């Protein structure tokens, strides 16, 4: 399985577009793109079959943890994409992998699907 369906939450559109392009080159697909907490929660309700999510922690100056909670409750593999180093992330989310910006596209899928990446030797 390589056609991962990715839910992308990032408030900087240029960055989101570049990420989407990188994901497509990796054989994944961005099934929804949100730039705010409200948008993300609405899209989460209307988007089927999400294999993984990339979530910027700070959306327009608002913490994105309500979106993280919703993704975790649904069992969707989740990776934080952020400019904040680990110490700034609440204890409750310490198990969520973090990609520190700026990161290279190759790191995304390995962080989201570590076991699949191992299996494919990626």
């Amino acid at each position, binding site marked *: 399985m390589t056609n991962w369906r990715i839910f992308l939450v990032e*408030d*900087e*559109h*240029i*960055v*989101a*577009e*570049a990420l989407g*392009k990188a994901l497509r080159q990796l054989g994944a697909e961005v099934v929804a*793109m949100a*730039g705010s907490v409200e948008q993300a929660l609405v899209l989460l309700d209307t988007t089927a079959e999400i294999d993984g999510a990339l979530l910027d922690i*700070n959306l*327009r*100056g608002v913490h994105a943890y309500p979106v993280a909670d919703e993704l975790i409750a649904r069992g969707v593999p989740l990776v934080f994409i*952020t*400019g*904040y*180093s680990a*110490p*700034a992330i609440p204890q409750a989310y310490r198990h969520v992998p973090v990609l*520190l*910006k*700026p990161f290279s596209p190759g790191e995304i899928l390995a962080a989201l699907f570590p076991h699949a990446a191992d299996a494919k030797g990626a």
Partner: protein
Amino acid sequence: MMLIAELEHRTRNLLAVVDALADQTLASCETLADFAVPFRQRLATLSRVQGLLSRAETKPITIGELVELELRSLGAEPNGRRVTVEGPEVALPNRSVQILALGLHELATNARKYGALAAPHGFLRVHWRVTNDDGQRRLAIRWEEDGIASRRTEPTNTDRVGLGRTLIEKSIPFQLDARTRLEIAHDAVRCDIVIALERAQRLPTWDALR
């Protein structure tokens, strides 16, 4: 500690934007030599924005200031003749400044290369007003170029229009819940950008003057 975390956050986000801009610019260049000028100009826009934002806490950034800064950076002095900038003093929400600056930069570059700023009898007019519908204040910006006898190049094939169009039609609406429209004809350009002004601004608005 909080301050350092915030500084790191801003720096890393800015680096991610630079990374994405490099990617976008590279994708539209035929040779590596084509890359340097537009990329440096885009970096210069980001750099000007950093300068503005560094003092935004004490003095809000206004739309007029941003428009004039981007025009001047390309040598287009607003002079009330061929280049006109008009509108009330309106403070911009801080988070709108960077993306608006990038959009205005692409419009201005495009005007300099193919549009009103390149044509001998071209006119560029940037004007704006504040509207108030049901208590929601909005800033409506209009960019108008006229008197372009004939555009030098088919604009849809060029990188600048490409990124400019993406920024105006996709990025600005996505990030600012804005409404935008960009129309490029052979002899004129018109772009409308309408953004919400979220909170009460520190500066008064003078709708009455418009």
